[in-house]
């Protein structure tokens, strides 16, 4: 069964450094998402991406964050200058096109980001 893949599985970065998290969505999916889960908290929506542009973003997704689909397969989340509070699990998800809008999002296994 096709799946969303994320790399790396664990990223350790010094505070203030830039980090790029990578995702390969399921190949025929057109909608892409980033969510995060801080330890002990809920899974939170960050951003959605469709047709090569951001379609929706949360208040968490400030100017430090950006997303890109640099080629036909990868979808990346960049954090420009990381802060301690950016430490979390980051999940990528994708969502298929179809006649029904009621389709589930499919999640990758996440990248654990640890900011030191």
């Amino acid at each position: 069964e096709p799946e969303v893949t994320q790399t790396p599985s664990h990223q350790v970065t010094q505070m203030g450094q830039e980090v790029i998290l990578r995702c390969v969505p399921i190949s025929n999916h057109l909608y892409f998402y980033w969510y995060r889960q801080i330890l002990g908290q809920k899974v939170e929506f960050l951003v959605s991406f469709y047709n090569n542009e951001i379609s929706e973003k949360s208040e968490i997704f400030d100017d430090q964050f950006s997303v890109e689909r640099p080629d036909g397969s990868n979808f990346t989340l960049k954090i420009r200058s990381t802060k301690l509070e950016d430490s979390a699990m980051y999940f990528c998800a994708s969502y298929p096109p179809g006649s029904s809008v009621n389709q589930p999002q499919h999640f990758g296994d996440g990248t654990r980001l640890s900011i030191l």
Partner: protein
Amino acid sequence: DQQVKQNSPSLSVQEGRISILNCDYTNSMFDYFLWYKKYPAEGPTFLISISSIKDKNEDGRFTVFLNKSAKHLSLHIVPSQPGDSAVYFCAARAQTSGSRLTFGEGTQLTVNP
């Protein structure tokens, strides 16, 4: 963000019995609800969903019930198996607000052999 709430952080049941996981929501614009299962070190895996025009959806051992007037949904697993032990997340979407999912806190289900 308290729009989706799972009040039970944990649930323990015996193998073969029914597991009932509950979820409450406050946003009346939610029109699509999902349950995800999550094992440690893995991402959420889609389990079952229900549209707001239905009150029940069944898939094998899993049934989701939706009570719109009470803004409550539940996931029934019967019979429960030890492999069902995982964290279960309730999630909801309001189509009028885009396609983002709003998650509950999760419930850790433990099925004892």
